């Protein structure tokens, strides 16, 4: 399937950029954070994914069609985002293709933005963000920059595939995860993950608009969240709540 997923480039792709991923997952944290990055950093669409295995869906913007999986960027950043939940059976080949493509573009660091579901989230006074890494060096880098490390547990979804594949290839990668609602859009968690992102990447994204417009974002993201819930059930996302049993 991997060979039948193509990335079509629309602009010159920079070499040595930092590559981010924001896919629909717990609380839509990755998508909300990535959308805010695109808007504030004025990133342009530089590439998109094309495959006969993608659902027959396009996104219309100003009357023109766009792929649901697109890559935005500038001279320092590449950011892959999906407007709709990625079908469970497409997650692995999609991430494989994106990582191969990023490697060919000599990406220096890959960072997946996402959430980690939290029980009784509405009672949380403060949300925490965590990082997990593909290599000991990347883990040390995140730790040295003051990011709390997710030491144990299960990870399910695109970020799990990214870490595993980058680990195999020795590519530095981080999964940045903020505590969030599992099944409801969580702009507050997206703000937390963006704050932590600044520590490891130096990329500053203001979170004030995200917090101010949080309720409207939740309303607008309602339908994407509902469809994401179905895909999260398919990949057994609830496993992230499980008590881990690591055999060493």
């Amino acid at each position, binding site marked *: 399937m991997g060979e039948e997923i193509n990335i079509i480039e629309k602009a010159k792709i920079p070499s040595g950029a930092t590559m981010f991923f924001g896919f629909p997952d717990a609380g839509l944290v990755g998508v909300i954070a990535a959308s805010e990055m695109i808007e504030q950093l004025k990133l342009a669409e530089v590439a998109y994914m094309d495959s006969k295995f993608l659902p027959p869906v396009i996104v219309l913007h100003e009357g023109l069609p766009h792929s649901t999986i697109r890559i935005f960027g500038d001279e320092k950043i590449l950011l892959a985002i999906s407007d709709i939940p990625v079908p469970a059976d497409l997650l692995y080949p999609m991430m494989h293709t994106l990582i191969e493509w990023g490697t060919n573009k000599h990406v220096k660091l890959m960072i997946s933005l996402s959430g980690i579901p939290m029980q009784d989230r*509405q009672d949380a006074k403060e949300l925490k963000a965590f990082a997990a890494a593909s290599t000991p060096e990347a883990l040390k880098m995140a730790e040295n920059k003051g990011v709390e490390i997710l030491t144990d547990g299960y990870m399910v979804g695109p970020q799990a595939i990214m870490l595993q594949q980058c680990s195999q290839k020795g590519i530095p990668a981080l999964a940045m995860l903020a505590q969030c609602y599992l099944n*409801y859009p969580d702009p507050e968690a997206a703000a937390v993950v963006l704050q932590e992102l600044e520590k490891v990447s130096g990329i500053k994204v203001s979170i004030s608009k995200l917090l101010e417009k*949080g309720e*409207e974002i939740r*309303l*607008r993201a309602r339908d994407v969240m509902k469809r994401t*819930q179905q895909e999260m059930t398919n990949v057994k996302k609830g496993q992230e709540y499980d008590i881990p049993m690591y055999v060493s």
Partner: protein
Amino acid sequence: MLADKRKRSVIDIINEHIEEFEQWLNQFEETLTEKPSWSKKNSAIEPLKNIAVHPKEVTMTVDLPFTKENTLQVKPLDENTLEISASTKRKIRLNELGITHQEGEIQKFHCHARLPVPVQMDKMEIRFKKGILEIRLPRKHETRRRKQ
């Protein structure tokens, strides 16, 4: 007595399976029914909700962002159905939500929630925090068991 205990536990197990199957069936029905989340006719949008069945109670959360808290209503319609409604802080035109092929507006959240197991509606507890409505309902069979 031991036989009674065994008999009851087998019934309990079967009941649990039936409950799980009903939950699955509800989710399956929702998956099959591809309908819009909003109604132009009622100027309403259906909120996201989640129901969890615990040994002693049923808890339900409903995502109600951008609502006026003093308009929130939770009404039992019958012994296993709740009606939930709340007005939005202002009228939201459909084009503000990216729906450009129809005119209309959203003024409220509205949904019916069918509870998968018998509950004591008169002991319902609700709270609203950060735009999330939380409803807690004690299960009926637990009361019966305690009385035995």
